C-alpha cells in the first residue's frame, strides 16, 4: 500500500507548538498573504475559481463562485464570516485545525477578506469549545501585533479587523443564515431566502460565509497555484481535504488526502476497524448524510462518488460502526439529537422529530409491528424536502438509510420484543473481541 496522504493543512501539526505565529511563519506562514496583497482582489477570486475549491462545510458549493456573487456596487460594507460552529455529530475537523494551526485560518481570513473587499471579518466559533476560542483569540492578537491584521497590513494600505465570536450553543447556528442571526445577537433561526447573504447577509450587507477548512485552504492555493491544487482530487472535486475517522477504528483522527480516496484506503491508513471486528455501517460526512455499508468501501469519497452511492460527502466525517452496534439504537440517538436541536421554526422538523423519536424509542424496545416501519418511512417522506432548512433533511437521513440497509434488524427487534444487541459490546472499553 502506498501512502496516499497529502498533508497540506495538517502539514505543520507535528511542529513544535504549531499554533504560535513564530512556528507558523517558520514553515512559510503568511508568505501567501504577501503574494495575495500584491494581486488585485479580482485576481484572487479568479484564482480560487480556477482552483475548483468547493466549500468544505458540507454542501460543496464552489467557493470562488460564491465570492463572485458579492455585488460591487452595493454601498454597504462587505463582511467575511467564517463558520466555525462545527456541531454535526461526527464532524471534527475544524476544531483540530484551529487548535493545531489557528494561523492557517487567520491567514486565509485576511486573503479571503481582501479578495471580497471586506474590512471586517468574523469567526463564529461554537461556544462550547472555549479552548479553541482562546487559542484563536491568541492567534488573532499575535497577528495584529505582527501587522498581519489591523491597519495597513504588510504596508499595503489594506485594513482588516477580525472578531472571534463565541457562539451561543446550538447546532442550528451552523446553518449559515441562522448563524448570521445569532451573530447579530438574535435567536439563531434560519432566514428566508432571498435575499441571499451575498446581497443582504450580516447587518443586511453583502456577506460571504465559508467553512473554516474552506478558508484555511485558500493560502495554500495562493502559495502553490490553481494547477497544483487541481492536480489532487478528481475532475469535479479538486484538491485535498481532511477526512475525520471516528468510532470503531483502530487509529481515529484526521487523514488529509486527495478527494476521491476510498474508505478502504483510509481504513488501511487508520489500522482498520478495531481489532477483531468488521465494518457494519458508516457515515460518509456526518450524521446528516445517509448511512453506507461495507458494500461501499470502494466508493470514491468525492461529491460525485458518494452522491452516486445515494449519500452525500458532507463534511467527510467518517463514523465507523462495527457489527456490535445496533443500528436502531444508533439511529435513535441521532434522532434524539435532531429533536433536541430543531430550532422549532417549521412544522415538519419541530413536530416531525418529536414524533420520530417516540416511534424509534418504541421500536428499539421491540414494541410495534412492521406497519410501524412503513409508517416511519412515510413520516420521513413527509419531512424530507418539506422543511424550511436542511436540518430536517439531515434528521431523516439515518432513518431512511438504515431502513434501506437494515430493515431486518428492525424486524428482529420486533420479533424479539427488544434489542438483540449487547450495548456493552459496542463500547470502546468493551473487552477485545466481545460480540453481540
Amino acid at each position, binding site marked *: 500500500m502506498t501512502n496516499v496522504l497529502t498533508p497540506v493543512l495538517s502539514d505543520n501539526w507535528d511542529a513544535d507548538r504549531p499554533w504560535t505565529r513564530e512556528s507558523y511563519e517558520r514553515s512559510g506562514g503568511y508568505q501567501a498573504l504577501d503574494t495575495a496583497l500584491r494581486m488585485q482582489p479580482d485576481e484572487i477570486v479568479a484564482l480560487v475559481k480556477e482552483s475548483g475549491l468547493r466549500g468544505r462545510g458540507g454542501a460543496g458549493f464552489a467557493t470562488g463562485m460564491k465570492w463572485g456573487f458579492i455585488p460591487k456596487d452595493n454601498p454597504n460594507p462587505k463582511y467575511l464570516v467564517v463558520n466555525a460552529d462545527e456541531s454535526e455529530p461526527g464532524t471534527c475537523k475544524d476544531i483540530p485545525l484551529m487548535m493545531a494551526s489557528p494561523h492557517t485560518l487567520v491567514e486565509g481570513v485576511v486573503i479571503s477578506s481582501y479578495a471580497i473587499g471586506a474590512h471586517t471579518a468574523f469567526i463564529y466559533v461554537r461556544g462550547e469549545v472555549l479552548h479553541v476560542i482562546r487559542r484563536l483569540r491568541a492567534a488573532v492578537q499575535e497577528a495584529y501585533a505582527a501587522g498581519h491584521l489591523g491597519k495597513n497590513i504588510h504596508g499595503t494600505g489594506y485594513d482588516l479587523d477580525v472578531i472571534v465570536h463565541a457562539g451561543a450553543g446550538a447546532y442550528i447556528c451552523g446553518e449559515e443564515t441562522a448563524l448570521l442571526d445569532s451573530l447579530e445577537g438574535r435567536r439563531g433561526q434560519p432566514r428566508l431566502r432571498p435575499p441571499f447573504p451575498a446581497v443582504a447577509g450580516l447587518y443586511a450587507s453583502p456577506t460571504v460565509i465559508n467553512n473554516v477548512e474552506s478558508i484555511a485552504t485558500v493560502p495554500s492555493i495562493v502559495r502553490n497555484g490553481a494547477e497544483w491544487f487541481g492536480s489532487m482530487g478528481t475532475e469535479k472535486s479538486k484538491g485535498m481535504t481532511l477526512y475525520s475517522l471516528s468510532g470503531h477504528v483502530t487509529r481515529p483522527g484526521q487523514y488529509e488526502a486527495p478527494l476521491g480516496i476510498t474508505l478502504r484506503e483510509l481504513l488501511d491508513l487508520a489500522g482498520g476497524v478495531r481489532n477483531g471486528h468488521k465494518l457494519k455501517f458508516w457515515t460518509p460526512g456526518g450524521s446528516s448524510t445517509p448511512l453506507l455499508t461495507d458494500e461501499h468501501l470502494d466508493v470514491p469519497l468525492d461529491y460525485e462518488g458518494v452522491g452516486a452511492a445515494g449519500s452525500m460527502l458532507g463534511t467527510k466525517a467518517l463514523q465507523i460502526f462495527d457489527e456490535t452496534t445496533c443500528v436502531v439504537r444508533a439511529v435513535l440517538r441521532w434522532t434524539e439529537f435532531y429533536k433536541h436541536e430543531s430550532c*422549532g421554526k417549521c412544522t*415538519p422538523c419541530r413536530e416531525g422529530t418529536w414524533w420520530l423519536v417516540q416511534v424509534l424509542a418504541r421500536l428499539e424496545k421491540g414494541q410495534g409491528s412492521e406497519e410501524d416501519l412503513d409508517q416511519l418511512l412515510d413520516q420521513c417522506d413527509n419531512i424530507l424536502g418539506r422543511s424550511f432548512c436542511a436540518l430536517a433533511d439531515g434528521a431523516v437521513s439515518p432513518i431512511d438509510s438504515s431502513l434501506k440497509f437494515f430493515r431486518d434488524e428492525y424486524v428482529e427487534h420486533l420479533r424479539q420484543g427488544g434489542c438483540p444487541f449487547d450495548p456493552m459490546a459496542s463500547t470502546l472499553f468493551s473487552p477485545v473481541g466481545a460480540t453481540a
Partner: protein
Amino acid sequence: MTVTPSKAGSNAPAPQDLVTLTIDGIETSVPKGTLVIRAAEQIGVQIPRFCDHPLLAPVGACRQCLVEVAMPGPDGELRTMMGPPGRVKPQASCTLPVAEGMQVKTQLTSPIADKAQQGVMEQLLINHPLDCPVCDKGGECPLQNQAMTNGRGESRFQEVKRTFPKPINISAQVLLDRERCVLCARCTRFSEQVAGDPFIALVERGALQQVGIYEKEPYRSNFSGNVIQICPVGALTSADYRFRARPFDLVSTPSVAEHDSGGAAIRVDHRRGKVVRRLAWNDPEVNEEWITDKDRFAFHYANRPDRLTHPQVRDGETGELRPASWPEAFAVAARGLRAAGRVGVLTGGRLTREDAYGYAKFARVALGTNDIDFRSRPASAEEEQFLASRVAGRGLGVTYTDLERANAVVLLGLEPEEEAGTLFLRLRKAYRAGGTRIFAVAPFTSNGLRKLGATVVKAAPGEEVPAIEQLAHDGELALDGGGVILVGERLATVPGALSAVAVLASQTGARLAWVPRRAGDRGALDAGCLGSVLPGGRPLADAGARVDVGAVWGSTVPTVPGRDTDGILAAAAAGELGGLVVAGVDLDDLADPTAARAAVASAGFVVSLELRASAVTEHADVVFPVAPVAEKPGSFVSWEGRVRPFEKVLEGSNAVPDVRVLAGIADELGTPLGFQTIEAAAAELDEFASWDGERAADPTVAASPAAPAPAGSHRLATWKTMIGDGPMQDGDPAYHASGPTPTVLVSAATLESLGAAVGDQVELSTDTGTAVLAVGVADLADDVVWAPTSSGGVNLGRDLGAGAGSAVRLSLVPAAAPAVQEAM
C-alpha cells in the same frame, strides 16, 4: 402583455407589470411580485395556510401551503423544482413570488403537494391538544377547518403529546395556551411589524418553542387584541371573552367603532341581547384588518348597572328624580324649556351623525338658538372659525390611502398612537414602506412618534406657533412636494396655532385634515352642532346659507351667533341662559370641570339625554335614557370625512335614539322636528347638497407668547392615553389592567433634581389640588412635564384644575419609612 395606459389622475393605480403563469392548468396574469398563494386565491384556489397573512411579511414557517412548482429553463422546457436528490421539492406558496411561465400545481392537481400538505397537517396536530370542545376558537378555527379540508381523517400519532401548564397571562387581557399554539409567528410579527410593540417573541426551540414575554414585563400594546384575532388557533384568548360563548351561538353584525375618529370597521358578536365580543372587520380603505384595544374591548359600558332604562323627572316635593312615563317626561321637559326662555345645547362626542343633526335642528327650530357646541373639551373661537373655514361639510378629504402616498406627513397637536389608533397603524405602515416621512411638532419624542420614525420638532405647550411657522421653510420636510398636515383637536388651546396651520397649508399647498379624538365630532360638525355652522358646513353668517337651511326646515334660522361650550356654561351660571339640554357630556372633559359642575347645578332647567347616570343627571330636571350605538343604526364620520354607516346590532332592544327623544320634546313644544327616526333624519340631512358658497375666512389670531412657568414649577403638556378613564371604557378590569401605568414624564435633569428614580411616586400639584403618579423620563425640556389627562383615577382638569400649558409643581413622594428607624 397589454397595459391600458391610464389617463386618470393621482388616484389611479400606477400601471403594473403583469406576470403570466398557470395554476392548476388555469392561466392567469397578476402583478409582478404577487405571491403564488395570492395569485391562487384570485382564481379561486384556496391553498391551506397558517403563518401566511397578507398584511405581515412572509416567514414560510408552517409549511402548510406547499405546492409543486415548475419553471421554464433557459431552453423553455419546464423543470420541476427539485429537492434532495431525485425528489420533487414542493415550495411554500406564501413566500414564492410569481414568475413568467411558472407552472403551479396545488393540492388540487398535484398528488405530491396534496400529500405534503396532509403530512404537515398531521404534524401540526400531533402536539395539539385537540380540546376544541372547550376552546374559544372551536367553530371558527383555521386549524379545525383546514384539518377537515386538507388533513387526513385519523391521526397515526399514538405517542405522548407535549404539554404545558396552561394558560399563562402574557398581559392582563391576553392569555396564552401554549399547547394550542402552532408557532406560526403571526402574533409576534404583528406586534413587531404592524404595532411596533415587539414585546412578545418566540423563545426556546424545537417542540418547546413558545411565545414568550420578557421576564416580568407583560405584553403592552394598544393593539394587543389583534393577535388574538389573527391567531389561527385558540392559543391566544382574552380574559374578557375566554369561555364566554361558542362562535356558532353568536350573531355577528358589522358595525363601526365609536371610540375614536378612525371609523374602524368592526364586527359585533352578540348572544341573547348582549354583546359578548367585538372583532376587527376587514376594510382595506380604512382600518385594514386591525382595530385598537379600545375598539375591541371597551363595550361593557352599555351594560353597567347604572344604565338608564326609563325617563325620570325631578319631583317637586322631594327634589329627587322619580320614574316617569315617556309622555310625562316629554311634557315636563317641554314645559320647563319653554319656561326657561333661552336654552343652550351641549352635545358630547358619542353622538352619531344623525343624532347630532337632530340636536342641530332642535336647537335652531325648537329652541330658536344657535347656542350649541359639540366640543366637550377645551376649545376656542379660533378653532370654531378654523373648523368653519377648513373642515365643516367638506366631505371626503385626505384618506388613509393618501397617507401612504404622501411624501411627508406632519402631525400637529396630535399623538396618533393614543388619540387615533387606526390612523397610527396606517402611518406606521406608510413609514415602514419607506415612502412617507413623518414629522411632528410635540413636546417630546413619545414612544408612538418613535414607532413612526418621526422627526420631532420640539415645542413646549403654548410654543407651537413658531415651530409651525418654521415648517414652511423646512427643506427636509418639503411640505410643498405632496405633503399632508394632520391637526389634532388639542391645537385649539394654543392661541394662533390653527391660524398658523391655515397659513402653512396655503403657503405650501399641503393637504390638511383635522383629526378629532372622538368618533362623533366630525359628524357633529358637519351636521351643524356648532354655533356658527349650519348643516353641510353652511356658515350661519351667510344669508344664502340660512335661506338654504330654512328651505329644508320650513322655518327661519336664528341669526344671533351662538356661544361655545364654555360660553354656554358661563351664561347658564350667570342666568343669561335659563336652561340646558345636555347630551352625553362628561363634565370632567371640559376645560374647567369644577366651573362646569357649578354651572349645571345652578342652571335653571336641565334636560339630560344619557346612557348612564352621570354628573349631569345628578342635577337634571328631566332625564331621558338613550340608546348606545349597538342599539340603534346610524353613522359616524371619520377624520377623513368618510361617512361610516352601521346597522342596529341588538335588534331586540327598544332603547330609543336621541332623535326620537328630541322629536318628542319638540312635538310638545309645538315645533315638530319633522322626523322621529334615524333613517328619516339621515334622509333629511342628505337633502343638503354640498355648500358651494362662501365659507368663513381662515382665522387670523396672533400667537401670544406662552408665559414662562413661575419659578419652582413646570409647564404641563398633556393628552389622553388611549386606555384611560372615561365612562365609555368602564366595565372591563382586564382591559384597564393591560393599559400603561399612569406616569408623569420629566426630563432627565428634572428627575435628578427631584432625587427620584424612574418608577418612583411623585406628587403633581397646583393651588387647586394634588395627584400622585409614577415618574418616568423623556426628552422633554427641563421646564416641561407631561402627564396623562385622565388615567388611573386622576383627572388633571378636575383634580388639579390644570390643562395643557398650566403651571404645575412636582415633588418626590418619600418612600414608606422603614419599619425600624435607627436612633439618632
